[in-house]
């Protein structure tokens, strides 16, 4: 458990491993990152994350301003102000909270503020649901935040630390979401290793978040003047900023890889930065997964391998910016693909990751039979048994079965 882990005097006697839920792992990482300001508002399944943060501050183990704002809209607004005044900032939300936060959320990437936010993913309303699913994160995937999905509690902790480094990198300067599956990762507890504070300090380096735009009386400037319009300098000025934002997103692909490398060197834990290839070397077909579902999928792949099926798994970690090149590289050798989404792309009648993958397949230049599976909606479990069926149905494509027009609903008959 947490047990004064962050007090340098106590760290010496801390256990080698602790067991904590994903929300607590994120909170511990935030404390290690020494933010200046954390603003919070409770919402299921994120609430325990902000409770852990509040407790860390109340116990004197974290030196940060905690602003209990009156709603998510103000939560992110407070952080925008703090970041413009030079603060390292963090918050967390999900589902309806994200929807309410949308106005400042939509604006953050354009301000180029390196705000870090845990997105404890939750399915969308309606039907009324308080449970996990990726619908909230997928709905905002085009807004311009960097979004990385975690598979394990340890990865939540490590990715949260890396998120600050990635967001604040001068070539990126974009807000980052750490996406962790509501329920299964947020409340699921597992063994994690906590890095030492001194190592984290060295890894993250000096805070310098508002070198480009500051609200400081001694450096007067106007932040976000009216820009654009159809005449004069407007159009060119606006395009310049938009291109800058696109460049930041593309740079993020490189910086995410560099940061994962540096993290592995410093802390000895290596996670695939963009796309993980699991048992892909001689795979004939593969599953494509995202986030907390991946562990069960890997177990299923291992069992299918034992049964002689040449199946592999590709996991997308960085969903925004979409890692087109890395995904194409992973897809190069296979002949059929099953894409498992935990949310719905209503416009395309498939999963959002499936839809994005179709774009990558065009880039690959090789047609590939692929099926869209949708499961785990509103807290439903995607079990090893479910993945066995996904493997069977994907394998059928290999043998000439025509891909279904529309998604295959994993939990339809549970």
């Amino acid at each position: 458990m947490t047990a004064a882990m962050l007090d340098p005097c106590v760290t010496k006697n801390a256990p080698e491993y602790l067991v904590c839920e994903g929300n607590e792992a994120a909170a511990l990482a935030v404390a290690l990152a020494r933010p200046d300001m954390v603003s919070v508002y409770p919402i299921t399944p994120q609430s325990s994350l902000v409770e852990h943060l509040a407790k860390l501050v109340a116990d004197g183990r974290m030196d940060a301003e905690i602003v209990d704002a009156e709603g998510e809209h103000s939560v992110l607004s407070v952080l925008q102000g703090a970041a413009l005044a030079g603060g390292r900032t963090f918050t967390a939300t999900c589902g309806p909270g994200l929807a309410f936060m949308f106005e400042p959320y939509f604006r953050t990437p354009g301000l180029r503020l390196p705000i870090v936010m845990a997105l404890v993913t939750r399915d969308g309303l309606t039907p009324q649901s308080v449970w996990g699913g990726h619908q909230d994160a997928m709905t905002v995937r085009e807004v311009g935040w960097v979004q990385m999905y975690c598979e394990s509690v340890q990865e939540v902790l490590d990715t949260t630390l890396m998120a600050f480094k990635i967001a604040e990198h001068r070539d990126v300067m974009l807000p980052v979401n750490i996406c962790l599956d509501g329920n299964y990762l947020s409340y699921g507890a597992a063994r994690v290793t906590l890095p030492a504070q001194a190592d984290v300090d060295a890894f993250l380096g000096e805070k310098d978040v508002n070198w480009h735009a500051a609200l400081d009386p001694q450096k007067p400037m106007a932040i976000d003047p009216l820009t654009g319009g159809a005449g004069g300098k407007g159009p060119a000025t606006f395009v310049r900023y938009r291109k800058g934002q696109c460049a930041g997103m593309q740079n993020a692909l490189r910086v995410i890889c560099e940061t994962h490398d540096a993290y592995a060197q410093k802390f000895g834990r290596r996670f695939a930065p963009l796309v993980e290839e699991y048992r892909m070397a001689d795979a004939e077909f593969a599953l494509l997964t995202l986030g907390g579902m991946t562990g069960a999928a890997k177990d299923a792949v291992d069992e299918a391998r034992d049964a002689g099926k040449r199946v592999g798994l590709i996991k997308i970690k960085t969903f925004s910016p979409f890692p087109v090149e890395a995904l194409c590289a992973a897809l190069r050798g296979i002949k059929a693909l099953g894409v498992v989404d935990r949310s719905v792309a209503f416009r395309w009648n498939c999963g959002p990751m499936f839809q994005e993958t179709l774009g990558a397949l065009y880039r690959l230049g090789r047609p590939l039979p692929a099926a869209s599976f949708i499961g785990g909606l509103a807290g439903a479990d995607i079990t090893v048994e479910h993945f066995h069926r996904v493997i069977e149905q994907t394998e059928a494509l290999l043998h000439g079965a025509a891909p279904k027009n529309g998604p295959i609903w994993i939990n339809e008959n549970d």
Partner: protein
Amino acid sequence: CPTGALTHITSARIYNEVGDWEDLFAEGLSGCQGCNTELLMRHALRRVGPDTVLATPPGCVPGMGAVGFNGLTGTKVPVFHPLLTNTAAMLAGVKRQLARKGREVTAMALAGDGGASDVGFQSLSGAAERGENILFLVVDNEGYMNTGMQRSSCTPYGAWTSTTPVGRQGKGKTQDAKNLPLLMVNHRCAYVATASTAFMEDFYAKLDKAIVASKTGFAYLHVYSPCTTGWRFPPEKNIEVARKAVESNFVMLWEFSPRAGLRFTHSVEAPLPVADYLKAMGRFRHLNEDQILHIQKKVEENRALVEQLATRSSAA
């Protein structure tokens, strides 16, 4: 004339004190001719001074160029566009972070009545409840003037706006205005006051108190700002309209602090009939007798309510 003599002394006193201080807005801002908002914000920012961070949510203040356009700015202190909805929250973040670094600055908002009383009210109320150290100045021109003179919850009963138009059926706004400053009193802010540019000395005194109060709590200043364009009166009549609003008790000048309670700073004991005020502008031209009566009754009700609060305060 005695009034003139009084004004003479007052104006000279303010001029002698602050006339040399730098106007912290650009020389040229594109407020309408005779814009009361431009007048009050130039005075206010000069008084608050350069150690300030200024928030100007969408409205006439940035609309006239305070935050600038394509690389040009209209303000000499750091200034930003919050959203219409999050001024108080964003400013709270700025102020807290600068305070954390040991910097003493005034975090000031110049917000319109719409962004404060309607869509931005949650953020305002939350920041006031948390006691954020902010000077929140609301420019009340009783509507969304920047977007084309639409109704806000601060628009008074009977007023024509572009969304409460006058026609065969429509006779202007059918509801009374929300009393935002009294709502802020109910938040027990460190300081709450109403002001008018027709009473500059009163405005300056309240600015000074609000600046001090904002160092340790939430200071709220509600300044009535007659809008020549939206209220339909000639630009040169601006101060006259503002003055008549006070002299008819349509607008009352008072201040509140939790310790001292509420008190009138300029009590009008023998008010003009409100019709004299209403006649001064085009937005009330269509009113029938019943409507004028309704407004007169509301003015008296409001006066009685504030009087009651003031009496209770002085008794306490």
